[in-house]
């Protein structure tokens, strides 16, 4: 078959496990703590001791419903718990309490920004279950079992196979992490295994007017966004190559399989075939009562639903006139977005606040490795700084300087500006003098600004910078710009 006639389309559905950050486990009172010494967060219930019984964690259920709502799902009014049976040492009861045929949320969708467009991915279902413990194999000739994680609440989200590339899957996972952290239902920390991804991947190959589909491969337990993208990319190529090599490599002919991602080698590796489907013998857990979701409960949960990142991003851009990029940065963390709106509510112009948060405060926070809300500068003082920048009391450069000083000093930004001599000079004569000085000292730049179209813009910028420097940072950049243009115009006309 000639390659010219061959087009391929990757088909991906995702299963995502999100660990909810409840204080206690899904069915017992043990804390969920990642760093705790092995088997220190356990009790008869999560150890599967004889006679111990599960009791549902209501907070986990409410957060799961909240997430379902954010994913535009239908919320089931009646659900139940089912036992999924399989023997494994990290599963104390040798069954997992999960939800089988009545998931708490279903038939939703989640929209993500891919490039310039919006991609809608349908959500098939979301359900709650308990996590398993961990088998530790790297301890000589025996396997040790740590059951701290056993019973931790897990929300499993399953998408329809609507994702059409590794990049889309990558963006989807990032956006989902943003969502769950925004909702406050999960820390979403990959390193702690709080989000785990299992893409189901196959390829639709169109060749000579016919479409072929490769068998579906489930890639197990990916725990980074990078791994999601790389594993799907690799798998799509591998499957296409396998089909080229053997035209029988097709869905329905060759069994589906599970593969694992080897990050060191950058390849997926065969784990097990799916020809013999595991019989999990699901049946309703008789130890737990069915869950009935009342109108009141639904309303209470809906009231907890914050504005979601995508919607908030759009609103920030539209309502406050922020650039898309700045809006995205501000919405990255819920706390930052909320801080932004509090500062604006303090009477400062939104555009200036947005710029200062993104370019000044977030940078200062990042440099110090703290959250922007932990810089020690509250919204009132941030608003003051934005105000004196907006009304021309100080220019941008001075505002940046003042911000940094505000971290260690409690005076108002205006006081600091005065004390440091950073109050902007509006005086026409002084400003004209700084411009003259810059022009005199930089003849080459002036020539470029007048005669070299390629360098014109850069040269003007340079002259502005030099004049500002000459002013000791106190010049009003707007006035400065006007006077520079004025001077250049005079030079052009030779007057």
């Amino acid at each position, binding site marked *: 078959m000639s390659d010219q006639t061959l087009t391929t389309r990757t088909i991906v559905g995702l299963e995502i496990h999100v660990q909810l950050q409840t204080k206690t486990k899904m069915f017992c009172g043990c804390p969920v703590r990642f760093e705790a010494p092995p088997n220190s967060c356990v009790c*008869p219930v999560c*150890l*599967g*001791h*004889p*006679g*111990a*019984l*599960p*009791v*549902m964690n209501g907070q986990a259920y409410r957060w799961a419903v909240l997430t379902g709502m954010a994913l535009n799902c239908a919320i089931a009014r009646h659900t139940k718990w089912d*036992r999924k*049976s399989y*023997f494994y*040492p990290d599963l*104390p*009861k*040798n*069954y997992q309490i999960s939800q089988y045929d009545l998931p708490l949320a279903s038939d939703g969708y989640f929209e993500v920004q891919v490039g310039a467009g919006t991609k809608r991915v349908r959500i098939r279902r979301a359900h709650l279950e308990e996590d398993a413990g961990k088998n530790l194999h790297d301890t000589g000739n025996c*396997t040790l*079992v740590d059951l701290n994680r056993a019973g931790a609440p897990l929300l499993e989200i399953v998408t329809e196979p609507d994702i059409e590339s590794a990049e889309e899957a990558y963006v989807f996972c990032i956006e989902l992490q943003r969502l769950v952290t925004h909702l406050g239902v999960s820390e979403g920390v990959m390193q702690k295994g709080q989000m785990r991804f299992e893409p189901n991947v196959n390829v639709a190959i169109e060749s000579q007017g016919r479409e072929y589909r490769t068998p579906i491969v489930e890639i197990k337990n990916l725990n980074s966004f990078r791994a999601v993208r790389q594993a799907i990319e690799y798998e799509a190529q591998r499957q296409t190559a396998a089909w080229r090599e053997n035209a029988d490599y097709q869905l329905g002919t060759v069994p589906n399989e599970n593969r694992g991602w080897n990050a060191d080698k950058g390849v997926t590796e065969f784990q097990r075939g799916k020809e013999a*489907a595991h*019989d999990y*013998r*699901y*049946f309703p857990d*008789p*130890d*737990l*009562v069915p869950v009935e979701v009342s109108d009141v409960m639904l309303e209470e949960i809906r009231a907890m639903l914050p504005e979601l990142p995508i919607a908030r991003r759009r609103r920030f851009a539209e309502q406050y006139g922020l650039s898309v990029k700045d809006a995205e940065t501000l919405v990255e963390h819920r706390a930052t977005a909320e801080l932004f709106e509090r500062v604006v509510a303090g009477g400062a112009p939104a555009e200036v606040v947005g710029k200062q948060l993104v370019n000044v405060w977030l940078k200062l926070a990042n440099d110090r490795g703290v959250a922007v809300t932990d810089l020690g500068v509250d919204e009132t003082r941030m608003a003051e700084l934005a105000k004196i920048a907006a009304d021309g009391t100080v220019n941008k450069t001075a505002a940046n300087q003042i911000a940094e000083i505000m971290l260690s000093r409690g005076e108002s930004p205006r006081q600091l500006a005065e004390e440091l001599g950073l109050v902007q000079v509006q005086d026409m004569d002084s400003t004209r003098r700084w411009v003259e000085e810059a022009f005199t000292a930089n003849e080459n730049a002036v020539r470029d600004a007048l005669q070299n179209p390629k360098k014109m813009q850069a040269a003007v910028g340079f002259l502005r910078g030099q004049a500002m420097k000459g002013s000791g940072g106190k010049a009003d950049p707007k006035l400065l710009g006007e006077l520079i243009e004025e001077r250049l115009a005079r030079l052009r006309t030779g007057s």
Partner: protein
Amino acid sequence: MLGPLAGVPMAVKDNMCTTFGATTCGSRILESFRSRYDAHVIERLESAGAVVIGKTNLDEFAMGSSTENSAYFTTLNPWDTTRVAGGSSGGSCAAVAAKIVPAALGSDTGGSIRQPAAFCGVVGLKPSYGRVSRFGLVAFGSSLDQIGPIATDVRDVALVLSVIAGHDERDSTSVDRPVPDYLARLDRLVKGIRIGISEEYFGEGLDREVREAVQAAIDLMAGEGAEVVPIHLPHMKYGIACYYLVATAEASSNLARFDGVRYGYRTPRPSDILDLYESSRGEGFGPEVKRRIMLGTYALSSGYYDAYYLKALKVRTLIKNDFETAFERVDVIASPVTPTTAFGVGEKSSDPLAMYLSDIYTISANLAGICAISVPCGFDSQGLPIGLQLMGPAFGEEHLLAIAHQYQLRTDWHACVPPLGSAVSRR
């Protein structure tokens, strides 16, 4: 202040977790197991002042009707030591019958309190499902299991029930509704109550002497002014089949945790993890437990689930509906507890089906979740006790106990003492 059971020595069936002694469930697989916690009922008994003096024998994991399935001992019937005590709470019933303790706790999944109580001539109550917390009761059939008291008379049963009944937030299936003062209401008169009689309980297989004793009991109450009302429970005949799907399905899952990994018996030198599972369980469980795990696993397997487990759940609903309909017309339903009196040791141990049929009259109460009590109502010609079963609607213990108590005020079968080691027989 002294609790209501202050100083009362009691025995509990060895499938309830205790931090003292062992909790074996009559199984090799839990021979070395020690519980880290006390069952809810143990906490309740002890805070009421009771002294739990020991754990009693049972069929392994409460699976059986004779206490011959214990991995340790066979419990014999105090009335005739060539006969079984019944089961699976045979140890608790024999201990009460033999006057070792005045009261004991058993558990009842398909008749495991009432059947041995009838065989041993004592009173045994299976409370309504959800009345007593199952927290700490090693599960057999979770949707059927219920802990209940065993004593020589109804008053003591009522007293113990009032101590152990009530909501426990650690058991989601325990129901949060008030516990009536059972003792205070025992004096309610029989006159005017309606007793339902269903022919399904008097059909083929019922021993003539058992039938006559039960009939005599009903006649006695009718003589006291009770109204006898014929009722029909059309789906009762499916009870055994339904039960052995539901109970075994749940058991197959409940017993999966006994795997030799975390506690209990582990095979000495497993070759790999699969062998660890298979050999630990193969060596740790007895034949009846294995049989039921296999039955239940089969019933839940894909391709069979709808035909067996799901169908059984539907039948269960029909049986429940039968009782609900009946209790619109009657206060209690009277029947025999068992088709025969205590059978001989070894007589049915090679015939599981015959053994299962000895629970034919008790199983439906578990499927329906209602309360039911076994009270002594006579002896057969061999001197073996006969039990009368009275069944009441869910959470109707108060009325049920009163009726049973009124019956006992007019009879003295419960006051008879087995001839163990003395010439004393019936009074």
